[in-house]
């Protein structure tokens, strides 16, 4: 019984939140890794792209609610998501046309593109603030829980409860669907394969008659969709705040690099590695350990390895270790 209680406590505080957070990071990292693979630079504006997509989705959610449309027990934001994605697509394609294309034609070095993306980051940050302000916004509606801790306790008779938020379940389901779609697209369709070819060997891809402009456009559309989805899932699960999204850049980059930049599979693995490390290292293990240890050995402290505020330090430490010992990441990514 104690063992089961420990397991449930672990699931409740570590596994479920870790899965949800990992899925959010993974989708974010997929966007970063696609840009790196195709456009060959680290996009510092990615966090703000996520913020923009989420802000647009929140706006459309408000519109739908004003029209009296809801999604029953599910958050209305899911209905608004396609509109948010469309708006973000338009924005990133516009920015690519206005800003990035010039440097591509010039064959500018990647570091210049990174600095350019810093400029885009500022602009997008400003645009998001114009659009929706800087305050904390919660936009999840519908049922809050699939199962509450109390229900779980009465159902199983255990001392520990397991709560699963609707948003957590949605995150995981949507992530699975998104990843499956993306991999189907990249591995089975002609356009997807041409993107992989372009990422692998640009000159040969051009020789084979692959149209670089189309590849770039499709990439931006995918990135907009991924970024918006990641942003909306994160916002539903926690809350939306422009500045928080900017800060997500670090764990997202860590995920992409740990997995291997340019490798979609790696981005997903990296997302979960980073998420679970952050959660386990900053979790107070006392709750689990009291069930497992004999009572005379029960810990009296929280048994928290690091305070929650150090979660960045965790993703960063993993990043450094991977960079030093396996610079191409867990899944062989590109290392230019």
């Amino acid at each position: 019984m104690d063992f089961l209680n420990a397991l449930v406590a672990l699931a409740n505080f570590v596994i479920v939140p870790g899965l949800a957070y990992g899925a959010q990071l993974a989708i974010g990292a997929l966007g970063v890794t696609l840009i790196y693979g195709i456009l060959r630079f680290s996009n510092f504006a990615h966090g703000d792209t996520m913020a923009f997509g989420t802000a647009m989705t929140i706006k459309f959610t408000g519109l739908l609610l004003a029209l009296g449309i809801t999604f029953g027990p599910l958050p209305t934001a899911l209905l608004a998501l396609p509109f948010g994605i469309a708006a973000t697509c338009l924005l990133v394609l516009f920015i690519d046309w206005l800003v990035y294309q010039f440097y591509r034609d010039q064959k500018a070095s990647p570091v210049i593109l990174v600095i350019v993306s810093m400029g885009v980051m500022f602009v997008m940050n400003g645009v998001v603030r114009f659009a929706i302000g800087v305050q904390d916004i919660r936009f999840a509606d519908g049922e809050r829980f699939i199962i509450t801790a109390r229900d779980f306790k009465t159902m199983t008779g255990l001392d520990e409860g397991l709560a699963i938020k609707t948003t957590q379940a949605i995150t995981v389901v949507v992530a699975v669907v998104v990843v499956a779609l993306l991999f189907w697209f990249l591995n089975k369709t002609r356009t997807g394969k041409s993107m992989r070819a372009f990422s692998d060997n640009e000159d040969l891809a051009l020789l084979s008659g692959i149209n670089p402009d189309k590849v770039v456009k499709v990439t931006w559309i995918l990135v907009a969709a991924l970024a918006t989805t990641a942003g909306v899932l994160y916002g539903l699960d926690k809350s939306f705040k422009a500045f928080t999204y900017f800060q997500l850049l670090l764990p997202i980059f860590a995920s992409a690099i740990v997995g291997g930049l340019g490798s979609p599979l790696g981005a997903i693995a990296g997302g979960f590695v980073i998420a679970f490390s952050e959660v386990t290292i900053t979790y107070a293990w006392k709750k689990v350990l009291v069930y497992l240890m004999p009572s005379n050995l029960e810990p009296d402290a929280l048994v928290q390895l690091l305070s929650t505020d150090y979660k960045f330090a965790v993703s960063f430490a993993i990043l450094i270790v991977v960079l030093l010992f396996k610079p191409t990441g867990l899944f062989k990514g590109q290392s230019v």
Partner: protein
Amino acid sequence: MSDPFLIGEAMTGGYGKGPDILHGCTIAAEKGEIAVIVGPNGAGKSTAMKAIFGMLNVNSGAVRLDGEDITKLTPQQRVVKGMGFVPQTANIFTSMTVEENLEMGAFIRRDDFRDTMTQVYDLFPILKEKRNQPAGELSGGQRQQVAVGRALMTKPKVLMLDEPTAGVSPIVMDELFDRIIEVARTGIPILMVEQNARQALEIADKAYVLVQGRNAHTGTGKELLANPEVRRSFLGG
């Protein structure tokens, strides 16, 4: 005399705004023939081939394919016109499977290319065996076969190979030459730059010796092999 099938005539040019590397150089290939370009290091062999493929500026002279002037076309447009080009390095998509490499070779075709793929597999049986393996995991000789196969997927009217045997062992080199002869027998003219002059001349129907961007000797492979001057200067006696 009618024009050869592919001809780069009196080409003069160089990379970007740099100095001219080619000086009135003429290279041609006829249907069903293997033409090779040989010469000492820095003679402009690869440059001549790239000039024919449109990868550098040709300041004077012309390139014609099947009687059509293609001097002003980009490499991509030349691919559409029916030129297949196998670069010397980075000539495969390493992270993609062998089959996907061939599919990418056929990217410009919107018709059904399964027949062509079967032909390529018949020509290179080892590729069929390894078709679901990432091309980057293959051996050097097998990679070159993928590269040639990829170029064949467009059903090119002419195939151009830039040093296909660079960096492979002598045994593999012989096998590659055998395959190239087989490709030529299917009727596709082949233009090839080669470092291994003797072996290349042995299989060549037509051969060009370039020295400092100029045509030094031209003839059939046998003629050049027999030419004492060519023997003395490139073939080591």
